[in-house]
């Protein structure tokens, strides 16, 4: 017999463990499976498709971060591209100035830099809401890339920075792009496991409480301001990582890539995929990459005149967004959930409703 024995709980816990694995382990296993799928996928597709898969990867983590912020805590950010900008330039500067750093350290620092900016932005944002917050974050997206002009010698001006990342060990004989795709998805999945854990845990409940009713949340002992800042922090870390991965993948960081249009399309992807659902972030990222590509191919195939062809991708994206939101207010993921519910209803009477 030991001194501390609050034993009655233990058998129950063990029983629970037998039924389901701890969430972290479960999510890690799912991520591992997802990674295996990505690897298989990159092996059966050509190199250019690999690039698109990798692109989906970094958009996924950016959109997931924004989903956590907007969908779960109800803070609208129109400036998420700014965190990607920070991440991309962090990797660019590290690769160029401190070439001895390993890639994982560069990516970690890119996430940290994004997080730091998010902390500052969040501290300001916690005092703002609705349109004021949207405006403030938009200013971030508009203003931050202008830093490259202010510090031209350091950040390369409008030209940006270009560099080559050597990440593939010489012994491994896979094409560069395939290897890069693996790195991107591995990083993204690790980050996602952490994000999912947050969302499913106590902090996630706090996020939703703050979103639904700030007064009620603060009455039940939740520090509303701190919770909002935390949400900003986590989502900015995701944005920084996404930017860092983009820089790693494309070997470039230039202000022209981080216009307010990027921030807006990230938000559109959140809405399209399904507000508040991390699965929605995946559909949103896929849509960002593939709707664009498909409508460009369509414009090519139809031999449209250039003015029409140039604007078709945006128009198609807009139409799809409107249709999806009209048909499924909760986005693509909402559509899937409704479909699943319809299919299951006859079988399972008690479906555990969970919105994420």
């Amino acid at each position: 017999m030991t001194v501390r024995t609050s034993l009655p709980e233990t058998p129950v816990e063990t029983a629970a463990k037998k039924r389901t694995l701890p969430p972290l382990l479960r999510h890690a296993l799912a991520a591992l499976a997802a990674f295996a799928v990505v690897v298989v996928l990159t092996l059966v597709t050509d190199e250019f498709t690999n690039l698109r898969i990798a692109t989906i990867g970094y958009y996924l983590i950016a959109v997931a971060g924004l989903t956590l912020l907007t969908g779960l805590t109800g803070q609208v950010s129109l400036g998420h591209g700014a965190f990607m900008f920070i991440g991309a330039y962090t990797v660019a500067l590290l690769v160029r100035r401190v070439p001895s750093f390993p890639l994982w350290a560069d990516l970690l620092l890119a996430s940290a830099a994004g997080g730091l900016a998010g902390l500052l932005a969040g501290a300001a944002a916690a005092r703002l809401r609705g349109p004021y917050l949207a405006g403030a974050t938009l200013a971030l997206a508009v203003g931050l890339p202008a830093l490259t002009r202010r510090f031209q010698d350091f950040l390369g001006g409008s030209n940006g920075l270009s560099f080559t990342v050597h990440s593939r060990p010489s012994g491994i004989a896979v094409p560069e792009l395939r290897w890069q795709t693996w790195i991107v998805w591995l990083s993204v999945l690790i980050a996602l496991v952490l994000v999912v854990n947050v969302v499913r845990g106590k902090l996630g409940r706090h996020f939703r409480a703050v979103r639904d009713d700030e007064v009620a949340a603060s009455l039940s002992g939740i520090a509303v301001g701190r919770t909002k800042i935390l949400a900003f922090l986590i989502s900015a870390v995701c944005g920084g990582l996404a930017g860092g991965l983009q820089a790693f993948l494309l070997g470039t960081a230039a202000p022209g890539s981080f216009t307010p249009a990027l921030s807006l399309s990230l938000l559109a992807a959140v809405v399209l995929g399904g507000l508040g659902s991390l699965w929605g972030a995946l559909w949103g990222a896929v849509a960002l990459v593939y709707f664009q590509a498909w409508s460009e191919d369509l414009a090519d195939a139809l031999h449209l005149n250039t003015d029409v062809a140039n604007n078709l991708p945006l128009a198609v994206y807009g139409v799809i967004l409107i249709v999806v939101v009209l048909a499924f207010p909760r986005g693509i993921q909402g559509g899937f959930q409704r479909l699943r519910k319809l299919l299951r209803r006859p079988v399972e009477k008690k479906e555990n409703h969970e919105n994420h």
Partner: protein
Amino acid sequence: MRTTRTVAGIAVLALALSACGGAGESDGGGQQAADSAVGVTKDTVTIGTHQPLTGPAAPGYSKISVGARAVYQAINDGGGINGRKIDYHVEDDGYNPTKTVEVVKKLVLQDKVFAIVGGLGTPTHSKVVDYLNSEGVPDLLVSSGALAWDNPQKSPMTFGYQVDYTREGKIQGKYIKDTFAGKKIGYFTQNDDVGRDTQAGLDQFVKDQTVVRQGYDTANTDVTPQLSALKTAGADVVVCECIPAFTALAILAAAKIGYHPQFVVSSIGADPATLSGLLQDFAKRGGASVSSAQLLNGLIGTGYLPDVAQTSDPWVAYFKGIHDKYIPNEQLTNTLFYGMVQAYTFGQALKAAGPDPTRQKIVDAMSSGALKGPGLTPFGFSKDSHSGYTGAYVFKINPDTTTTVIQPPSVTDRGTGAITPYTGERATPEQVNLLGK
């Protein structure tokens, strides 16, 4: 249970994705041998380019590929080069470097192009030079005057097209020094290599006279603050190293604040017809109507290709023939003409590469120094130089928006060498005889 669902979901997604791309194909992806002939078949040669068809640089520049396409059509209708028709792929990158990297990888990996021809833009193209060279893809006639393209040691596959910005800056600088002695000069430049390289040339002549330097970023179309600063500093001459959209914006912003300096504009943004259109367009969007002829009157510019208004020029007449036949509804501007000359020059190089072109052969043809072209100054191409046109002439815009040459073509180097008048002969279309036997 949830894990199973998660995995199943990802698997379904994976299947959906693999259906989208050309599945099952995976080439080595390593370094292509330079003697390969990727993109060349018995009767076609596939080439690609990245252009801003949308975005901040699209006004004006989106017409370059229209001109190029017309020339390729003419070549194809004339039986092609050595019996091969040219298949021209144009990808829109919106002047966004991230997009440039993507579309160039698409052209190389998916469309399997033989060469990239005329990739447009300094901030954009600089991001793909290393990639194209490591993959051994010829990167010909880059649409930019940055010095970076002329580096045969580091980038053996890359060749310039335009006169580089330093050379052009020197010619402008000397002209300004001779003509506007004692006047105050202000620079208005794009915040990238365009600005940096040009100032390296200008400063050799007019550094002492320069009172203010302002830059612009393509992401921000409000240039009133910069023009106000130029006005405040009292600059009598404003050297504008701008793409067409920003030349037009600068002229409008100056007019708005009642500032009337002598503009000196470099070739990339001094096409009168393109500028007229943009001035009208931008003014209309701002709710005003302007007389573009009046705004452009007296503007000084530099160029290296003949002006399309000079119909007596044999090359202008030749390309006007192609224009009238293939794209009569497009306005014949110098920018459109730029694309036509570029396509024609690629045609020359492809012909010089012989009946069985390979990537190495076209690089050799480019470096041979044999390309004689429509330009008023010669190309600098040789074994040791991948520099495009090596000089420029100076012109002034007349009240009716035609142009008059006010200083004949001269050539110089990118260093501190002298500027000398160019007296060499140009080949005529008949002599080049691209489509003849």
